[in-house]
């Protein structure tokens, strides 16, 4: 496994950039709260001027509990939701439609990121 982890900050910078460039694709506002056990709380709101902020809010449509290793491997293609490694953690709850929309918008032939998110829906 690759030991060079993407930082949690970089992961959310990347996610913010992806969502920023796809704002028009969201028919409704999506909110997701990420609790990164070794990287702090993050809140994603596709309708806000700043899509990503570093705080915890329980009023999100979806809550995700994960760790840095999983986020890093999600970007790097080393995280297989169907066969997670011992150190992987990605548990989510809430509105399935929100998660599904996010995966669709991020999905596509170019992004393994979207493909992995789609796999998590199952």
């Amino acid at each position, binding site marked *: 496994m*690759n*030991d*060079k*982890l*993407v930082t949690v900050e*970089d992961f959310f*910078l*990347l996610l*913010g*950039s*992806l969502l*920023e*460039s*796809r704002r*028009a694709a969201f028919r409704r506002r999506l909110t997701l*709260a990420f*609790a990164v*056990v*070794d990287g*702090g*709380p993050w809140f994603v709101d596709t309708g806000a001027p700043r899509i990503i902020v570093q705080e*915890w*809010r*329980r009023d999100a449509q*979806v*809550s*995700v*509990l994960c*760790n840095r290793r999983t986020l890093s491997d999600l*970007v*790097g*293609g*080393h995280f297989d*939701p169907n066969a*997670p490694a011992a*150190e*992987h*953690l*990605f*548990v*989510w*709850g*809430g509105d*399935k439609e929100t998660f599904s929309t996010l995966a669709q918008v991020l999905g*596509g032939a*170019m*992004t*393994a*990121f979207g493909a992995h998110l789609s796999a*998590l829906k199952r």
Partner: protein
Amino acid sequence: MDAVKRNAQYLLRLVDGLAQPISAPEAQAVERTVRSLKHPELLDLGAIEGLGLAPKLEAALVFQLLSRRYPDQVKAAVYSAHTLSGVFLAVLGAKPEADPKRAVGQAPEFVTRFVDQLHALRPESDGTGTSLGAVRGAKLVSHDLAQGVVRLKLEGSGGEPDRDLSLHRRDDGAFDYQVAGGKRQRVETLDLPGLRVLHQALHAATAGGAQDPMLALLRRKTEADRAAVLKEAAEHLGDLVTQKAERRTKELEQLRGALEVGFADFRVGFFDKDRIDALAKELFAAPGKKD
């Protein structure tokens, strides 16, 4: 053109180049070229860029060169580059729906950092700080008590040359390090493997394990000095190694703690949102702050 855009365009060209089909004779020509190089380490990305090759050949050449030196890192970087190419295209306004000004404002930091990583691929870092690169060990060269300086030789591995490194005692008792005339930095910013290499070298020297003739001479001349500076530096670095290792252990314990709250057999997938929220509240609770 500013550095960020230039870097991003370089990465895009590389990613686009890798995505283009390459014929068997072309691929073989690139492979032959790389194999024939006596000193592939001298051919850096800047030099390759200056060759003015077609994008697919340039990308193949970079890929081959880096793959030989850093196979795992390249695999990860190239995979990420493909994964992220959509992002870079979007943030640079290559896609019509993107607003280039807004998008570039969002991502330059990430693009710069990513390209920097690509330019400075170095193995053997654990991501806890700055890597010293491919180093198999360090050897004490000399020390100077009056100046508070310890000089070491970093022994390169995997084709990397040896480099000089010096430790400088600061007024506050901590140490800075400096590699081959580069910038002086605090030793705390090194990653664990780097700290361990330096600590082991100094520890061996304080324990009298070093066989270096220069050290033997110094030992005869300045036994007391040697004990002072080296021991101090070794202890300082030893403390840092322990601290960083403890931090990592704490992170793992935090994760284990999270897993024990009902997630032991359920690490990935859909779960009850209220339980996730409750756990997150516990993890990030700040006194007096509303969730």
